[in-house]
């Protein structure tokens, strides 16, 4: 998921102090809780995501993943460090706002949570991660894909999802393998997300010996691509890659087809949505796009069954990754036989774990080793997965789904 587009807002001191006041009150309530755990020690795991607003459904999905993992662990009645433990999820709404991230992180630190799963947006996770680092609380995001997150050198920062800069090479290698283009046009929307992704794609294409045309650029508000596309048409590209969001990508592919551009259109995750079909109509058919991670329906069958039984619906997108993140924290605690973040952190770094989203190990930065990327295509008006890219290899989606579904 790209950095959030929510503008940074200056919050008044009054609001800030009100939040801190609420946080302080919450803390007092929490302090009374260990006694309620039926003799067992209560271990708090924080979860934060936007639970209200435009992507609240994705936030709830993340939360459900954590809840499932916590409930399963509690049902097992684990013993860590010689004491019976009971896990408790503290879920907070960060509204997808970058300025709320650190406030919630501080709230978790004050509540002495043992670990945090979240946040959902890269733009919120990055500022929050600094607070977790100071407090020494391990945090694992199941959905923040911006490379910056793990480039800050924080020892406590992890993610179970792939990075944007792995997405570029993935979509490029799929294009090369599947369509064997000779000339590719790369267009971006001049945002840090779009341009960064386009640069990665261009680098990988050039490495594969493909001719890349001079970069064309719009802005994140561009809806008129005709001039650019007409110039491109004259150069007859076999494929067009666009780094940007669906609001620019939809008109781009629609106008491209109107002008008679024949090649395949490819996009990153910002334009890998069903909205492409709405915006471009029939022209969207056959486009390819990539997303970090694997689609929820390709996660392990036991996870999907448990999720359905508990919540009565299918996981939407990142739930398998937050489920795994929670289990990673719990497993690391068991391995280290301690719930103290400082003690179980080395176990978390060295973990080797088979989760709902596949095998998980971390590299020295806290990124997932060989993270999967999924390639989608738009078929009959719907975005459907066609292939999984893992460690530079392309695996047809059906084969992959069979492998994990067993």
């Amino acid at each position: 998921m790209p950095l959030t587009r929510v503008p940074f807002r200056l919050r008044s001191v009054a609001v800030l102090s009100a939040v801190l006041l609420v946080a302080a009150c919450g803390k007092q309530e929490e302090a009374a809780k260990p006694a309620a755990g039926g003799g067992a020690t209560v271990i708090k795991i924080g979860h934060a995501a936007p639970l209200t607003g435009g992507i609240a459904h994705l936030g709830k999905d993340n939360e459900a993943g954590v809840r499932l993992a916590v409930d399963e662990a509690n049902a097992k009645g684990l013993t860590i460090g010689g004491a019976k433990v009971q896990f408790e999820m503290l879920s907070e709404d960060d509204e997808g706002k970058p300025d709320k991230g650190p406030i919630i992180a501080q709230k978790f630190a004050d509540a002495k949570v043992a670990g945090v799963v979240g946040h959902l947006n890269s733009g919120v996770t990055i500022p929050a991660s600094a607070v977790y680092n100071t407090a020494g609380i391990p945090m694992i995001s199941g959905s923040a894909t911006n490379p910056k997150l793990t480039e800050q050198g924080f020892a406590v920062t992890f993610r179970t999802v792939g990075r944007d800069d792995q997405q570029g090479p993935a979509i490029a290698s799929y294009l090369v393998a599947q369509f064997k283009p000779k000339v590719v046009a790369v267009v971006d929307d001049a945002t840090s997300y779009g341009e960064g992704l386009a640069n990665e794609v261009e680098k990988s294409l050039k490495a594969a010996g493909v001719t890349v045309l001079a970069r064309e650029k719009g802005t994140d508000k561009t809806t008129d691509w005709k001039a650019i596309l007409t110039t491109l048409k004259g150069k007859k590209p076999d494929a067009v890659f666009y780094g940007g969001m669906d609001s620019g990508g939809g008109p781009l592919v629609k106008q491209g087809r109107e002008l008679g551009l024949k090649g395949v259109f490819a996009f990153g995750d910002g334009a890998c949505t069903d909205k492409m079909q709405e915006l471009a109509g029939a022209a969207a058919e056959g486009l390819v796009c990539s997303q970090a991670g694997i689609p929820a329906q390709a996660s392990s069958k036991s996870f999907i069954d448990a999720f359905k039984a508990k919540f009565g619906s299918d996981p939407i997108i990142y739930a398998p990754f937050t489920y795994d993140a929670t289990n990673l924290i719990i497993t690391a605690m068991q391995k280290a036989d301690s719930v103290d973040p400082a003690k179980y952190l080395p176990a978390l770094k060295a973990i080797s774990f088979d989760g709902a989203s596949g095998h998980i190990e971390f590299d020295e930065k806290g990124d997932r080793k060989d993270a999967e990327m999924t390639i989608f295509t738009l078929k009959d008006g719907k975005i459907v997965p066609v292939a999984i890219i893992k460690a530079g290899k392309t695996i047809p989606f059906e084969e992959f789904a069979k492998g994990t579904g067993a």
Partner: protein
Amino acid sequence: MEVFLQQIINGLTLGSIYAIVALGYTMVYGIVQLINFAHGEVVMIGAMVALTVIGSLAGANTGMPPVVIVLAGIACAVPVCMAVGYTMERVAYRPLRGAPRLAPLITAIGISIILQHLAMLIWSRNPLSFPQIIPNPVFEIAGANVSGVQIAIISLSALMMLGLTALVYRTRLGTAMRATSENPQVAGLMGVNINRVIASTFVIGAGLGAVAGVMVGTYYGIAHYTMGALLGLKAFSAAVLGGIGNLAGAMLGGILLGLVEALGAGYIGELTDLCHVSWISTGLAERCAQDGHVVLMGSNYQDVFAFLVLIAVLVFRPSGLLGERVGDRA
């Protein structure tokens, strides 16, 4: 050559839309010497209303043919925008008619902000997709592709320009408008109801704007509550280019600006490719050999052309291309 022809067609389509919007600016300026900066927002509201109507009619399975649905969308958008135009004039401009010229300019900007945020409250912040219910056949002419929507936009614009010219020069209302534009006091003494004439000018301009909004929506397939701002500024530049206050000037200015933008965005990358002059430094030659192109200014400068034109006109010919025929403005 095919590419050039295609850019011309793109430019003509874009230019027709600019021309229709520019007419709204120029009519109001011609009659009350006021720049109605909220006009771009009227265009946006036209697109949004049409989108809502077309979307709900298409979704309701009424069995109506798509063309009728789109016409119904336009038929709803035009009166809504006319009402917005009338209210705007009545509330924000008429009370300030005797005031210094800066005052109505400021209320214009205020109205623009209010309309934009009202639209955000009604239609949300998200970009909305314009329902694509009309099949859009593409014709090939000498290697260039022309879509049905493009043909419809260009011909509808031409029709509206003809209609407006007829209205201004052939009807009683048009005569009253021209009289008011020349001298409101004297026109008033001659029995022209100035308030009614000025209000009609706003209403007609807003109606044209509504149609332009529907055109933009169907052409790009997307509508957003901020879409009017940039479009309005560009159309304003077009009006200034042609000579603000002059009807023919707004049409000419709009079409010229569309062409300048399309050709500019299409060729700026190639023109500013430093590899054409790679002999000036060895470092540059190396990068050219490696990448094939080192582009100084890319096509993302597309939006700059309108404003370059605006500055150039204001510096070198403030009255615009056709601006000297002051008596003709209406």
